[in-house]
């Protein structure tokens, strides 16, 4: 067990949480992410193998799924991001390595855990908030939808699920993204 202390993307040791009107925006730093891209000609096999890893079918275009332990969302054709808990205590079980072990030559797997900041947004009136942030049609963002979009010049993923919306944005711009979410929420509510 190494002794380097992690920082959240917003630059502190504990995640930030803001409630504005009916909406709560919570930084969620404890996620591991890895991209899975099917190797040439391995689309079907990789999709199938990923389903078995996830315990549910691999997400289709613009979809996200949640299996018993791992979730995943669609990033590009035959390419997904798998999401699971970040195990601070046991880096040996890191997600990318596990996936690589399972998927072998079927896929290219890349650790993306550090690449993104994640904000979970829940509460009433998410539509009123997100219509000021991005051009996604929130009426069509049914549970299980995952889209890449732009929020104040930042390329982000917005995932819609039962618990609310999740926003993944570029980690280095976590403060700008947080500021955008907060400002839009104050404007909307």
């Amino acid at each position: 067990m190494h002794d380097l202390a992690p920082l959240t993307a917003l630059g502190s040791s504990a995640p930030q949480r803001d409630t504005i009107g009916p909406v709560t925006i919570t930084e969620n730093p404890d996620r591991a992410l890895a991209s899975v891209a099917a190797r040439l000609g391995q689309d079907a096999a990789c999709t199938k193998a990923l389903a078995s890893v996830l315990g549910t079918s691999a997400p289709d275009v613009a979809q996200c799924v949640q299996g018993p332990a791992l979730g995943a969302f669609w990033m590009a054709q035959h390419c997904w991001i798998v999401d699971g808990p970040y195990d601070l205590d046991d880096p040996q079980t890191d997600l990318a390595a596990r996936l690589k072990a399972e998927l072998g030559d079927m896929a290219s797997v890349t650790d993306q855990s550090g690449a993104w900041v994640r904000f979970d947004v829940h509460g009433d009136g998410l539509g009123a908030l997100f219509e000021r942030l991005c051009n996604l049609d929130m009426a069509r963002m049914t549970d299980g939808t995952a889209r890449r979009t732009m929020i104040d010049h930042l390329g982000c993923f917005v995932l819609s699920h039962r618990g609310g919306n999740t926003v993944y944005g570029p980690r280095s711009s976590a403060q700008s993204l947080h500021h955008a979410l907060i400002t839009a929420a104050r404007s909307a509510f």
Partner: protein
Amino acid sequence: MNRLPTGGQIDRTTRLRFTFDGLPYYGHAGDTLASALLANGVRLMGRSFKYHRPRGVLSAGSEEPNALVQLRKGGRQEPNTRATVAELFDGLDAASQNAWPGLKLDALAINDRLSNFLTAGFYYKTFMWPAAFWEKLYEPIIRRAAGLGAITTDADPDGYDRGFLHCDLLIIGAGPAGLAAALTAGRAGACVILADEDFCMGGRLNVETHALGDQSGADWAAGVVAELASLPNVRLLARTTVLGAFDHGIYAAVERVADHLGQPEQGKPRQILWRIYSGRAVLCAGAIERPIAFANNDRPGIMLAGAMRAYVNRWAVTPAQTVAVFTNNDDGHRTARDLMAQGVDVAAIIDTRADAPACDGVQVMAGAQVVDSSGRLGLKSITVRQANGQEHRLSIGALGVSGGWNPNVALSSHQRGRPEWDDAIAAFVPGGALPQGMQVAGAALGQFSTQGALAAGAGAAIQALSDLGKTAQAPDLPMAEDGEVRITPFWHVGGTKARAWLDFQNDVTVKDVTLAHQEGFRSVEHLKRYTTLGMATDQGKTSNMGGLAVMAELTGQSIAQTGTTMFRPPYTPVALGALAGRSVGRDFRPTRLTPSHAWAVEQGAVFVEAGMWLRAQYFPRTGETGWRQSVDREVRATRGSVGVCDVTTLGKIDVQGRDAAAFLNRIYCNGFAKLAVGRVRYGLMLREDGIAMDDGTAARLADDHFVVTTTTANAVAVFRHMEFARQCLWPDMDVQLISTTEAWAQFAVAGPQSRALLQKIVDSEFDLSNDGFPFMACGEITVCSGCPARLFRISFSGELAYEIAVPTRYGDALMRRLMDAGREFDVTPYGTEALGVMRIEKGHAAGNELNGQTTALNLGMGRMVSDKKDSIGAVLSRREGLQEENGLRMVGFMPTSPQDRVIAGAHLLEKGAALRAANDLGYVTSACYSPTLDSYIAIGFLKAGDTRLGDVLRAASPLTGHDTEVTVVSPHFVDPDGGRLRA
């Protein structure tokens, strides 16, 4: 004074105090500034642009050309606001503009006396002598006189927002057609947005007296709006102007959230720009009345007849106690009737039609014309020429003028729509190819009866929904007025030498159009540009038609043949703040922070913008008085022992797949196929045109796995380029790409003690010895007892150096650990300045050299471009112009006196050569003070530079006042053999 005792849609129980030019007045909730001023007997509200003529309101809407005022003060000062749409609020502070010293007595009204000299285009014909006097004398005078309102140049303190809306059906305008359309589509369950510029939806229903069924128009409208508001699938946007129709059903609209308040609520925007994605749209923008030109038709008190009845019906204000109406159509008679119904004395209806119908209770002068008016600051009388030629004066305080109504076609013409002339209503109607998905209904289509508009609105909604595969039923619509349009076109009263205004704001008169015709400016666009007709803040909404008609008359062509000028967005002028939204000030663009940012802040680092990134530029220490001292220290410390620099900003691309090596072999001009696992190679990427695009390293972590680095600036472009190659050029290569720039915190650890430092951090099972981990080695390791990391033995500084990467969340901790562990070596953090100095000392090309204009040959890397393989850019790099022997080569420069500064951007000339372009031999790209050599040094591009080592040249920068004698040297100032790298 002029407020009628009853009626109107104002809240007489709410008294709002406001000021105009410092004088206090009162109005009511529901008033506009214009209606409130009229109610207080204020007719004079502005001055015209050119002649500074006194002006009052012409209209009751956003088409207003005359009554422009400045609202608010300080940073919120807002010029050119139309009093006709400014919603009254308590404390509103308005001032007149374009008048000095005051509205009543305006010095520049002298221009009016000189009008005979200031005709259309006069300035093209004079002010040419002497040439220098234009900027010095004439222009400053003209500029001061021109302009309308003023801004303070203080920052706007209010915020703006931008947002995105989606709908099946966008309905633009909430008059009878729009409300009927919204009701139809709303009840059918479609996702509907109904936008209207007014604060009270209903359009003309709010200003007309005719009934819808057994209700007043306003009551019917309010009822429909209430029903729509109750439907979850309908979004009502009042105070929202649809500004423009863009491609594929996208509309821009601005919602004025807080303009009716003194200032926005805390945290709330003043306005929101909505980008509306619509499946279909129905344009129900109504119609705009047009005036008739006659001599001195611009006095305060002369207004559009429809506006006059709007003031009476909606705001219970009459512009004067005695009025008259001048019309060429039946609608003018309606104004007279409505005013009489409110007890206003209507002196006469002057109707240009010989067959004008009679009107109960008022004299109709058929076949008559208004030939002049009087009253310096407001209308006192008009002169009427009757059908029999007799002229007589009528003393009146206001005149309503109706020349007919123009369908409001603007948004239908923002793309390829071109209005077509309709004789039946003597006006242009939407024509040509309308914006994709748009229909037009109601008065905007020339359907002027209320009944017709209601039915058309419902019909358009049914059609639009049907296009989208949805069905809808027409609602039961009330019976309403269904009159025909009766108009005999009449544009201007002739036979006068006096000026008759067409464009009120820009002071374009019938005479100006005549002069334009006489001088050959006959196409509508020439007419517009020569006379400025229609170029004012109202964009010709009330003036263009008259100008076209006059020109048509002069050329003998029909109005249809004459055509219209182009309609352009925005429909009405829009605050720039709204278009920019939240992307202002420090939020103009996102900020990217490095993993060690918080730590660097603690160290007191000075930061610099590097693209979107904020990077530590240098780390000043107590006692250091200038940045140079800090940078020199950082360089010396690194070269003397060890330094650490956050280099996370470099782009990183993970390249995997069976064909990864073959792929990189085509992306880089140098070979990559044979790079061994565990090794790194420098790579140069060319654009297909043979110019250097980017450079970096590629590390082979496995047979099928590389990590490629790019420069900070080009990370995005390189990724796009590689995806292009992967998907479009070689789609059957097995390669997958993903950016990992943000995934890893990466630090350069450089200097002779870098190995010793890293050995304290890197877990002991990894061999860092020179044999175990030689120059250009790479590997996946762990640090600090098991934290996964990557180590690359690469060097930008020229020292023994490494780059070490850990998952981003541990970057801060690793930096702190490096500092702790390095204390025994006096480890020194260094910033981008020291990084830059060391790379210049080493002669590495960076952004200043890889400037998109240089080739591998220019950069001294010509031999890297392999001719043994097909790589991007190799072929075109061989063109003769890029292979000249005498071409630019990257070399180094040392001043002959070490402390003489060499300036980046200086040009190179032979010693003694004159400062002339013909003598130009190249330029300095990067320069710095080298603490290592204790001299200024520079690198740059010199013609045939590789053959000129040792020559003494002149590096001249007359721009900065530097002119330095320099010796041409190798660009590798420090350790040219690379011994330190490999130590």
